[in-house]
């Protein structure tokens, strides 16, 4: 009997996480987070502009790992691309330095959420829909991400 209950609970839990997981085509829930290098940022204020979110995993002064993302984002800034890095403090870690806004996820902030699995990269269309999601070995797939970003920004048919 206990085994059956355990199995039912497991099924319910797995379906719940599947339902809650964010997938391409979903509207991205709003958040507002403090920034380690500037003013807080709110996702809904980016409506009308394409946005790239870079979710970091463990990161202690990992600015060197961010340089490629920063150059990529800056090279497309002329097309209106906005890019944010999202960092979560662990133990005594220090936030990375970047010219991009580095947002800090804090569990105490009720208006924020954290994405797992991290690291991950998201492309969010100007109408707030998740268009692309990269989750596996993201740091080794920077070229692929860059190519997809180029295609995504060159198509520009979000509002058609």
């Amino acid at each position: 009997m206990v085994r059956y209950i355990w199995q039912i609970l497991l099924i319910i839990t797995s379906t719940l996480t599947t339902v809650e997981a964010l997938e391409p085509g979903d509207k991205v829930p709003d958040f507002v987070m403090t920034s380690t290098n500037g003013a807080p940022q709110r996702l809904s204020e980016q409506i009308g502009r394409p946005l790239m979110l870079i979710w970091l995993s463990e990161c202690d002064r990992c600015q060197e790992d961010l340089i490629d993302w920063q150059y990529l984002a800056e090279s497309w800034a002329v097309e209106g691309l906005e890019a944010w890095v999202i960092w979560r403090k662990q133990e005594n870690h220090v936030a990375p330095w970047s010219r991009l806004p580095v947002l800090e996820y804090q569990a105490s902030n009720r208006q924020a959420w954290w994405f797992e699995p991290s690291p991950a990269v998201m492309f969010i269309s100007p109408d707030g829909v998740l268009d692309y999601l990269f989750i596996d070995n993201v740091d080794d797939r920077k070229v692929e991400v860059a190519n997809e970003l180029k295609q995504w920004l060159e198509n520009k048919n979000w509002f058609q």
Partner: protein
Amino acid sequence: MRITYLLLLSLMSSIGFAEPVQISGEALENKASANKAKAQTSQLSTKATSIKQSVLELNRDLYQLEEELLSPATTRAAVYFSLSYGEFFEPYSINITVDDKQPIQYLYTKRQVSALRQGAVQPLRNLNLGPGVHTIKAIAKGIDNNGKNRELVLEESVEKHDQPLYIELKIQDNKEIQSAELLISQW
């Protein structure tokens, strides 16, 4: 021949007159039924409008009743936030506690700060506070005009009477000291 022609002419004319009479009769009936339907529709729309109006009034009364029950004047309080000029301080966040409880936290984006600089007054939270003296602690975090991180701290006591209490926390520029200060005022 002439008689036949006359007969034919009279027949034609009679047919010609009979048909329009028949059509106008149908048209009259149609018109009457259309008018009736129109009158019914307008009556229905008037009724629907009055029902909608009464539902709205009922909703408003219920809302007022709920407000009075949940938050009567004796315990009603509200906190507002504003920025006067904002030349010496740009807020990033504000944390407020009343009697070390009911924490209020808010993060300000550049766009919101710009709205505050233009005179917006932000309603932060409605509170339930009993009559008496209450301690309000507020910490506004942000940057000063040199881009350095700065905190403005305030701790004040306010007295609540049997009337609603409206508190405004204001960050005001002080040109004499070239700095900003966090002030509290009651409406």
